[in-house]
């Protein structure tokens, strides 16, 4: 596991220039590790995160790798160490950009935050609970046709909330393979 700290300059993550600098460092690290990666962004050591910085670090980072048309690379993110006050800022920017992400809580459980519709959330929960699954598992569990379930999982994949492998899917956050870890030391 490669562990990289990208923000030691400031004690709090505030202002757009700071957020842009942190995001650029993360992107630089991601550029070095190939076209497919799972990255943990750890906020445990971050004091304050304001809306502007959250927009630069979280929303603009996700927007680089999430696209319903043609995501340029296959990078997945898990966010850890998000406090209540971080959550205020992060949820606001996710809502503004119609984004969602996976956060891993202290007890190890993962959950989706941001803008996700009810069926997408159900599908993600099923895949997460199973550890891995295919469209048939989702179709059976929530009463969709196989085609509809496949389309939904494809959408979740394009949003980088599930990882596609062979002919199945793994929920981001439930993967056991060691991820690339990026710690925001503020």
């Amino acid at each position, binding site marked *: 596991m490669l562990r990289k700290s990208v923000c030691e300059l*400031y*004690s*709090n993550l*505030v*202002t*757009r*220039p*700071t957020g842009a600098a942190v995001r650029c460092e993360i992107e630089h690290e991601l550029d070095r590790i190939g076209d497919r990666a799972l990255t943990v962004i750890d906020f445990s050591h971050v*004091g*304050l*995160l*304001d*809306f*502007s910085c959250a*927009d*630069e670090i979280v*929303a*603009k980072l996700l927007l680089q790798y999430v696209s319903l048309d043609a995501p340029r690379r296959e990078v997945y993110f898990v966010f850890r160490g998000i*406090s*209540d*006050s971080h959550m*205020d*800022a992060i949820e*606001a*920017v996710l809502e*503004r*950009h119609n984004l969602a992400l996976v956060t891993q809580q202290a007890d190890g459980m993962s959950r989706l935050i941001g803008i996700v519709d009810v069926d997408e959330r159900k599908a993600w929960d099923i895949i997460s609970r199973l550890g891995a699954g295919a469209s048939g598992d989702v179709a059976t569990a929530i009463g969709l046709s196989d085609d509809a379930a496949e389309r939904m999982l494809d959408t979740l994949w394009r949003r980088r909330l599930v990882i596609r492998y062979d002919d199945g899917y793994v929920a981001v956050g439930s993967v056991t393979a060691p991820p690339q870890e990026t710690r925001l030391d503020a």
Partner: protein
Amino acid sequence: MTTIINVPHSLEDKSFEQVLDQVAPLPLDEKIIVDTRHARWASPYGLTALLALAQSRAERPVLYVPEAENVSTYWSRMDFFKHAAELYDLQGKVTRAKAAETSVLLEVTSISKSDDVHGVVDRIQQRAQDALVKNLNLDAKITMRFTMALSEICQNIVEHAGRGGWVAVQTYTWRIRLGGRKVVVIAVCDPGIGFRESLESAPGFQRKDRWDDGLALEETVMRGASRFRDPGRGQGLAGVRRFVGNWDGKLSIRSGTARIAVLPKGDWDEDEPLHENLAYFPGAQVQITIPERVT
């Protein structure tokens, strides 16, 4: 010609309008003397607005300092004179504060670049917990949100004003209503381009039939408009509005000739949502007021 500007005894956001009523009609290069000799009290808004006033003048103004020793000491403790000395010719005796006197939440602080915002956030976090939780009986989770709001308001200067401004934070007893409830007040004042000119600088901006400072404030504060095309912009003020609403607070922003207010749900303030046709003052002057929780 020199004009004396009389400063009211109690200097806060409302009474500062009396100052602007006197200054606004004067040519920018006319010498003014700002007479605070009889001042008895000043809010963070009053102090930061006095500095922005000096910045807005082409001719360096004179400031007659308060005669009352306790007032002068308090203004010193707020670091007002430290900054005022660079903008005004000070006349009168300035009483220095003792080094140990540190009841101030955030002294008057200059904001002109992103690092200044970091400095403010770092400094206030050390003091905010005690002031907000112990003195104002607020839930502990307010501290981070309060600092987030402060950060966003300060960033408006860096991002939009086009020149430096000022921030100050203090707790005091609110005497207007409800017989002396405590409040914490953030004031951020700059003499920059203001909300209207900022929006006008947006690419492709088209003037509406009615276009003035009041509408620019409504567009920005109530509808999240920004001069940037980036859809992520405008979230800071939206976040501040949510914060103020969650804590029964009040947000008021003055720019140009108008002042907009996001009013508290409670009955501790009787302001109007929008004031227009005020005396012109450049830039933006922001005040956030959060009241003590009464159980």
